[in-house]
């Protein structure tokens, strides 16, 4: 049946399946935790919530609170982080024409990490729209670093990609050194090393719908914005000159794509710390199975990234419960073998 569909229809069908699968996965992932709540109950609760159905209560009231106030925000938060990182990965790989690029390549990770570390040393306890100081500082650190890198790389009205990669590398190294200094002086700075490591290894720190209400519009808006640039990204695979030849305003669109990618990354980092591998492995996996056309690559990567991180986070919080494994450890352990398998067996492998 799949074979009979036209190529683009087949891809749309895959997107619908991915979307449906993600919704199912969100509910499934909510079932597991300190108490396991049966999936049929969760389904009924969810259907009652959308007010189309009226199933009788066969579950404890506390279960409903656990699902809707504790687990779903976290699971949805994980999905947003995964979607944001995978989309940012596609943007950076496409713009930089570099299959090794990930969302952190131009310094967002180092900037976010330093921002978060500084925030952890500050004795103030501010809350901003439901967020503590650490996520806000991480967000600002990530964006400030990208702006710095972009301006350092700018020569004579242009921002050559190679100088951006170099500037990103150097600035990251500098910020990492400052952070290493702070860690080595942790006593002096009154720095809790456990929180620093937890940030560096990744941890979905969503505790309320209020945080989702801030992050979700950023991430979903960012993904829609990214999809707007699908043709531009296809054109960028010809290189900057080639893109200009097919009508792309290269310097302007480069800034916009970088800004979108950085915003998505900063949003993700602010609620999860540094979760590695999602932004690298998911775009590759999707490109290898669906092809490099960004019109499908972008939405499919967003959905697949969300699903990947929901599963990783589920494993992170259940495998050794009540101890929580950093989610970045899971994404690397699961992601690396998947990546290797894909590279060796894919139908449309890479042109190096």
């Amino acid at each position: 049946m799949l074979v009979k569909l036209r190529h683009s229809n087949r891809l749309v069908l895959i997107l619908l399946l991915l979307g449906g699968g993600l919704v199912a996965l969100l509910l499934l992932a909510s079932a597991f935790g300190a108490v396991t709540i049966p999936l049929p109950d969760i389904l009924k609760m969810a259907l009652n919530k959308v007010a189309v159905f009226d199933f009788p209560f066969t579950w404890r009231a506390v279960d409903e609170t656990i699902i809707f106030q504790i687990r779903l925000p976290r699971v949805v938060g994980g999905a947003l982080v995964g979607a944001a990182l995978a989309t940012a990965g596609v943007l950076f790989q496409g713009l930089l024409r570099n299959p090794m690029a990930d969302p952190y390549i131009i310094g967002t990770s180092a900037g976010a990490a330093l921002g978060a570390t500084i925030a952890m040393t500050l004795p103030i306890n501010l809350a901003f729209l439901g967020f503590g100081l650490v996520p806000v500082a991480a967000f600002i650190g990530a964006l400030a670093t990208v702006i710095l890198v972009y301006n350092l790389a700018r020569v004579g009205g242009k921002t050559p990609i190679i100088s951006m990669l170099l500037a990103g590398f150097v600035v990251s190294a500098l910020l990492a050194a400052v952070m290493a200094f702070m860690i080595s002086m942790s006593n002096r700075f009154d720095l809790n090393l456990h929180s620093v490591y937890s940030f560096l290894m990744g941890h979905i720190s969503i505790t309320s719908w209020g945080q989702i209400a801030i992050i979700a519009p950023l991430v979903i808006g960012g993904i829609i914005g990214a999809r707007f640039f699908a043709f531009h990204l296809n054109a960028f695979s010809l290189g900057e000159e080639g893109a200009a030849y097919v009508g792309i305003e290269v310097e302007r669109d480069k800034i916009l794509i970088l800004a979108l990618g950085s915003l998505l990354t900063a949003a993700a980092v602010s609620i999860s710390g540094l979760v590695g591998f999602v932004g690298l492995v998911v775009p590759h996996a999707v490109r290898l199975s669906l092809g490099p056309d960004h019109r499908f690559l972008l939405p499919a990567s967003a959905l697949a990234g969300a699903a990947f991180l929901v599963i990783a986070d589920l494993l992170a919080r259940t495998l050794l419960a009540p101890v929580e494994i950093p989610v970045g450890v899971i994404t690397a352990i699961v992601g690396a073998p998947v990546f290797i398998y894909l590279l060796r067996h894919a139908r449309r492998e890479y042109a190096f």
Partner: protein
Amino acid sequence: MVSLQVRQVYFSYFDGLVLHNINLSIKAGEMVGLIGPNGSGKTTLIKLASGILKPNQGEIRLDGSRLTQLSRKSIACSVAVVPQHFHIPFAFTASEVVALGRIPFLKPFAEESEVDKQFVSSALELVGISELKERRFDELSGGERQKVILAMALAQQPKLLLLDEPIVHLDIAHQVEILELVRSLNVEWGLTVIAAMHDLNLAALYFDRLVLLKEGRVSADGVPAQVLTEARIREVFSASVRVEPHPITGVPHIVIMPRASNIKQ
């Protein structure tokens, strides 16, 4: 069909002047070859004509409008460029690459229309590579790849085609095939063509008008017989040659003369 006027154009990169007071008037439907030694400014002139470089002084007009005032999109709707080669890092198929030529005509979020698809398949057909369309671009030979790039340029439905040494990496069969095709598009569609060319004999064979550049200045401009004289080639290229009429067409044919000590029996 569009015309191109280059008026008193000066251009320099960071170090030193590359083009010096260039004046050219190229009429709609002309087929012009840019020739000259390495570093004489051929590629730079092509890039200026495509609008991706901007003159330091002077102006370039496309059908009367200043190139610097046109958007990339509106330039791309009438001007297509074929560079020496493209490296494409992702595994696009040949027809996906050709479809990139339709980007100037597409709106964001829109699908390619039937018209766009028609232009893509007729471009593939015109270049004679319909059978390659499902093949991956990076697995094609150099000659096939260059044909795909040419098809992409033609899918843009250009009125002016700029080619930057389009055949320099190709074998003689592919060189002739591509030039024959470009020539027939020029004759049949009235496509205006400007091409930087290394091979003087092929330039003489396929182009009506040659512009010879030397150190960033126009050293000669005219029909091949006027431009390709023994004295001028000796002066501009510092090469010792003999120019004879082509046995069939009568255009200048350049015979390279080795040094006496290197002449083999």
